[in-house]
């Protein structure tokens, strides 16, 4: 009996490490038994509380949501491009990332083209989305996103995706 409990506690520990404390996410097989153990055994309860505390800390990890500018820029870059040849203008290259040797040359090169493309890109997105009140800064960002620049790095990973496209495109 004691041996079985130890074995079950070890299983429970593994389960918490893999799936976390939310029992709904555990595999169905054996879930009820292990949940009973969680409630009835002090060691099981301790393990669960620790897993819950860790999950709570993990949930503090930063996330982010898209700004209107970013969404507009992507739509403008795509729709405004000729023959679906829109290219990415690296945003990260214009900002300094910790631990990175960021290159700012691309962004600098595209300003003339950006100025020309800005009005078109802004108008295009506004027409699509119905969003108003855009500023000059918005326009510049749209333009940066919609310009075509040489970006040899961009496609290096594009052939790695799979999913809804035919194999020859993946």
């Amino acid at each position, binding site marked *: 009996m004691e041996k079985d409990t130890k074995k079950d506690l070890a299983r429970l520990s*593994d389960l*918490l*490490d*893999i*799936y*976390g404390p939310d029992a709904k996410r555990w595999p169905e097989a054996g879930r009820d038994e292990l949940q009973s153990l969680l409630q009835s055994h002090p060691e099981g309860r*301790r393990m669960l*509380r*620790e897993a819950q*505390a*860790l*999950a709570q*800390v*993990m949930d*503090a*990890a*930063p*996330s*982010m*949501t*898209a700004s209107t500018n*970013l*969404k507009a*820029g*992507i*739509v403008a*870059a*795509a*729709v405004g491009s000729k023959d*679906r*040849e*829109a*290219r*990415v*203008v690296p*945003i*990260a290259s214009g*900002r300094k*990332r*910790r*631990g*990175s*040797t960021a290159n700012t040359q691309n962004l600098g090169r595209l300003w003339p083209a950006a100025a020309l493309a800005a009005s078109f890109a802004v108008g*295009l997105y506004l027409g*699509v*989305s119905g969003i108003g009140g855009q500023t000059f800064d918005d326009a510049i960002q749209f333009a940066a*996103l919609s310009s075509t620049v040489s970006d040899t*790095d*961009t496609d*290096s*990973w*594009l052939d*790695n*995706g*799979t*999913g*809804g*496209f*035919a194999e020859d*495109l993946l």
Partner: protein
Amino acid sequence: MPSDDAKPDRAGTRSGASQGEARQADQALMERVSQGDAQAFQQLVDSGIDRVLAVARRTLGDEAEAEDIAQEVFLRLWRQADRWEGGRAQVSTWLYRVTVNACIDRLRQRKEETGGEVPEMTTEATQQQTMEEEDLRDTMDAALQGLPERQRLALVLFHYENMTMSAVAETMDASVEAVESLLARGRRALKSSLRSEWKALLPDVPE
């Protein structure tokens, strides 16, 4: 995401019937996109971009790079919309997979740039007894970035994106067993590096 209003599947939790419906809706939307329908494309962007950003931000630890990834992913979707095969996957699944690949590519580029050195920000997960919310966020971010990339990706997809185990395995092109191992090692590593943080939430648990 168009057909994927609930956060994706989270890829894998849908019934067969609703997955079929989702694929049909995706197919219809992608057909519109392939014909240059800006509204359809905007719908895809609006519904999917936050998930792409969340995965990229947590995997890369950098907002600007996450935005780059978002651009790359959606522009690729735009370029290839006319070759979409609806029966193969949902758009959300495809977005996750391409985002993960793009993140892996970025991380490899970083390694080349830094000669394999661990960026300074990954070493900061130390013991602070008390901390404000922002400090905790930074500490958690640093701990996450300190994990090996595949452990981090597995945790981002399973814990943060709430994907099923099989969907994570598919997205990472790995077996379920391999993902389980990655998750367990990742969580144990976080439990160790963030010991003071989670212990602070359990004041009555002895050291």
